[in-house]
């Protein structure tokens, strides 16, 4: 073992490597001149010589004797006869806090850009959430409305070419009669020239018809729900036989107990105005 150790110049071993027969721990060949611990700036090599953090010789210390390592401590340092040279301290002070890397390269050059980006992302998420919420609500409400097949059944198509000028046609729409009149030019001018502002339910002829020659109305008297008779009454329009309400050629109430004009349903002209769709 000794021959193996002799090939090494310096060897740092644990203080106790074996126990003598007497029970005394023995650490032969221990190197008491271990170098100082230094940082990476010297690639792990400290300055030569004894460690700077070992106690000074005058206060005692370790010595390697044939009997093993002996440690001495003097309670009182000698007051005279000891001369120490003081050198300037050049060792690197130990850092008690871990070294923090420099994150400067990763920091934002301009904090306002980051702020605007953050708010932009927040706002974008708000926009998406608002659209999602809106479409959720509208789609849910759409499930409550009538489906397309029900709506299609609730419509009535009328071929307009089969109705000559100056004639009434009564069709059934959602269980109610609907009057369609192909009005003549005289009737149109009469309906338009009426002073409608003084009527009981003032409505202009333009607001009651989409095309002046076609008058489409619900054939239900607004008084108590009878069906008026066409081309009758004092005003050349409709006359309700139940209680004597007179409607003019635009379906407006002119005389009698009815409070309102004949109702105009939703209708539309399609296929090049050759067809009328009520509903």
């Amino acid at each position: 073992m000794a021959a193996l150790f002799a090939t090494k110049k310096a060897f740092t071993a644990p203080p106790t490597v074996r126990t003598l027969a007497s029970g005394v721990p023995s650490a032969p060949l221990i190197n008491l001149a271990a170098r100082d611990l230094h940082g990476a700036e010297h690639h792990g090599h400290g300055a030569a010589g004894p460690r700077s953090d070992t106690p000074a010789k005058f206060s005692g210390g370790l010595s390697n004797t044939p009997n093993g390592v002996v440690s001495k401590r003097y309670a009182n340092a000698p007051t005279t006869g000891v001369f120490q040279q003081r050198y300037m301290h050049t060792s690197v002070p130990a850092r008690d806090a871990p070294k923090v890397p420099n994150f400067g390269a990763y920091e934002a050059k301009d904090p306002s850009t980051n702020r605007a980006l953050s708010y932009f992302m927040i706002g974008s998420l708000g926009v998406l959430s608002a659209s999602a919420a809106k479409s959720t609500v509208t789609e849910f409400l759409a499930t409550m409305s009538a489906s397309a097949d029900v709506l299609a059944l609730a419509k009535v198509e009328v071929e307009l070419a089969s109705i000559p000028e100056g004639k009434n046609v009564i069709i059934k729409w959602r269980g109610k009669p609907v009057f369609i009149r192909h009005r003549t030019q005289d009737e149109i001018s009469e309906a338009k020239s009426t002073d409608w502002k003084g009527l009981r339910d003032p409505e202009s002829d333009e607001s009651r018809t989409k095309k002046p020659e076609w008058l489409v109305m619900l054939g239900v008297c607004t008084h108590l729900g009878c069906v008026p008779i066409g081309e009758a009454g004092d005003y050349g329009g409709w006359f309700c036989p139940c209680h004597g309400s007179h409607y003019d050629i635009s379906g407006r109430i002119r005389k009698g107990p009815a409070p309102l004009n004949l109702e105009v349903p939703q209708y539309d002209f399609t296929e090049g105005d050759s067809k009328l769709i009520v509903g």
Partner: protein
Amino acid sequence: MAGFANLFYNTFVRRNSVYVTAIFGSAFAFGVGFDTAVTSVWDKWNQGKQWKDIRDKYIQDEE
């Protein structure tokens, strides 16, 4: 870039009322634009198959 970011921040974000209003306004515009885009994609994908594309073939004879 910083100027644009500050312009955005000062215009929309500084007052919360403006911010929320802008969000709801953008949501409305986004919804309309999204619907339009999806409809146009749908029409392009199904070109020639929909009734409005082939209506001419069938309605011409009647008129």
